[in-house]
């Protein structure tokens, strides 16, 4: 269950090359400008230092490439087109060979197993046309079974250095794995790497489970389960899979939980006498405080990153719309005014945007708007898209898409906040309700 992994970041001994580049600035992708042409790059198989590193050398390069290609910002030049072969990590790079195939960036790496049996991964990133290294070479040390994480860390470094954005590949997703027909669907909590690898199931299929949410540090998960017969909120420790119910006395149902940024407080929906309102609970004491008091439905709350405000969904106006109120309750301000119904708002990690589900004219959309409701942009459209979750760096949104009809099936998709690069996230079964973890340490 626990995937113990020791990762050390060690700067390789290199003369720190100044980040000067060919006529005007370093090699850099400006995502906000709208990348039309992905940046061509090459990542030859990593060099295996010794026999024991061999099995990882190709796999790690493949995962690095998969991460980068998956962003839609990079275009990998296939190995068949390479003129040069990298056989030594320490030898100087023949830039002319990579210029010839128009590789603007080059990633080289080496894999070895040290005396203690630990996997050692080193890499360097080059600006081919400037003929120099970008940043410092780095070394990661970990267990053999953690090789994918080390690959993600290499890719995170490359992504960060070339885009200037924070990284997100070394992250996980907790979600609901779905099997069975639409009218008798079985649902289990599952956790996986952001790219669908290393899946582990956290609960059995005996009870319906819904909408898991990661804690701010990724160590715990909140979710809703019908285990006792009625929907109740549970908090689960990811490492041990141990769980505890959050008691909400007098409620017929408690659901839609989400952590506050402090990791100690949970905001959630509680239903009493058919009416659903928002509450906050201090997990340690179990004490709850009521935030809203209205005959309407108040649900799907999400904290701002500074913990000061909560965005939520309410039908107090007659249809579900988005509102923001202080984290202690009080007057709420409506922020959604477009045509249609709005739900499942989620505050972005950067604090500037709210992602949401919009239902309009029989279609569902994932969209983003600024926190004052301006600049609404719809990123997707389908029969049923819902439940956005943000990548740790706030660049990508993952969500649930369900297909139409009796054979309808749920799956996970991701899309860039520019609306480009819509992609399915591979899962072995149907999947819904993703929640993206923070970047792992």
């Amino acid at each position: 269950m626990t995937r113990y992994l020791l990762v050390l970041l060690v700067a390789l001994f290199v003369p720190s090359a100044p980040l000067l580049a060919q006529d005007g600035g370093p090699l850099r992708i400006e995502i906000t400008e709208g990348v039309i042409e992905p940046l061509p790059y090459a990542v030859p198989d990593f060099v295996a230092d010794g026999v024991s590193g061999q099995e990882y050398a190709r796999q790690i390069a493949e995962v690095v490439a998969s991460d980068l290609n998956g962003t839609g910002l990079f275009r990998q030049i296939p190995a068949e087109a390479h003129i040069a072969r990298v056989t030594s990590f320490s030898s100087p790079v023949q830039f002319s060979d990579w210029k010839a195939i128009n590789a603007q960036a080059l990633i080289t790496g080496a894999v070895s197993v040290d005396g203690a049996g630990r996997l050692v991964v080193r890499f360097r990133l080059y600006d081919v046309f400037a003929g120099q290294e970008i940043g410092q070479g780095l070394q990661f040390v970990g267990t053999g079974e953690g090789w994918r994480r080390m690959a993600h860390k290499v890719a995170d470094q490359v992504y960060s250095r070339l885009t200037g954005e924070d990284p997100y590949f070394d992250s996980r997703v907790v979600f609901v794995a779905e099997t069975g027909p639409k009218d008798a669907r079985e649902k289990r909590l599952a956790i996986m790497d952001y790219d669908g690898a290393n899946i582990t199931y956290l609960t059995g299929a005996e009870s319906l489970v819904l909408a898991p949410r990661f804690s701010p540090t990724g160590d715990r998960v909140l979710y809703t389960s019908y285990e006792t017969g009625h929907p109740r909120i549970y908090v689960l420790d990811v490492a041990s899979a141990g769980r505890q119910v959050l008691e909400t006395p007098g409620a017929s149902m408690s659901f839609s939980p989400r952590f506050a940024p402090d990791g100690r407080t949970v905001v959630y929906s509680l239903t009493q006498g058919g009416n659903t309102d928002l509450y906050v609970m201090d997990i340690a004491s179990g004490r709850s405080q009521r935030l809203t008091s209205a005959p309407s439905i108040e649900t799907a709350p999400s904290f701002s990153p500074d913990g000061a405000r909560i965005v939520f969904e309410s039908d107090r106006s007659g249809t579900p719309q988005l509102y923001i109120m202080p984290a202690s309750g009080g007057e709420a301000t409506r922020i959604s005014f477009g045509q249609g119904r709005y739900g499942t708002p989620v505050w972005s990690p950067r604090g500037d945007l709210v992602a949401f589900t919009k239902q309009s004219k029989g279609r569902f959309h994932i969209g983003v708007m600024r926190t004052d409701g301006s600049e609404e942009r719809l990123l997707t459209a389908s029969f049923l898209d819902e439940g956005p979750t943000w990548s740790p760096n706030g660049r990508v949104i993952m969500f649930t898409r369900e297909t139409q009809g009796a054979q309808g099936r749920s799956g996970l998709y991701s899309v860039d906040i520019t609306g480009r690069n819509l992609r399915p996230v591979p899962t072995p079964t149907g999947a819904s309700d993703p929640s993206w973890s923070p970047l792992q340490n």
Partner: protein
Amino acid sequence: MAYLSKALLVAAALALAACSSPDRFGGAGAGAGAGGVAGSAQDPSSPLYFQQAVGDRVLFAIDQSNLSPEAIATLDGQARWLMSNRGFNILIEGHADEQGTREYNLALGARRANAVREYLVSQGVAAGRVDTISYGKERPLEICSEEACYAKNRRAVTVVSAGPVG
């Protein structure tokens, strides 16, 4: 005829499923075992009679939880049956169609179940006999993605959940 037998099959499946835990849709074993609903449809004091002759469900308009005249007629029958069969408790399940987000539909299902609960209690059914639960859009009865199916999924189902005492 074909429609009728299908309806009976569905009813029978529901009846069988009702014998397991309150989360009767969650387990793989739901529906296993014989005699989940006591008695026969001919026995007016049997849960099967309640389900089939009295009518165990009412339907709702899109996004609504108010009771139609048709729903009230069904619930009047349910209340009469419950008043004369006091050994039974009931669990009212609120459901929504698949249009709408998961959380909102859970809350909407709770509203619907509560509307039925309040009406039955107003007709004299002891509140202590009535429990409610919402399944939101998690357990559709009909699985097509058209209004014909949605209309049947926007429902509150009264499940007679315990055998008569004494």
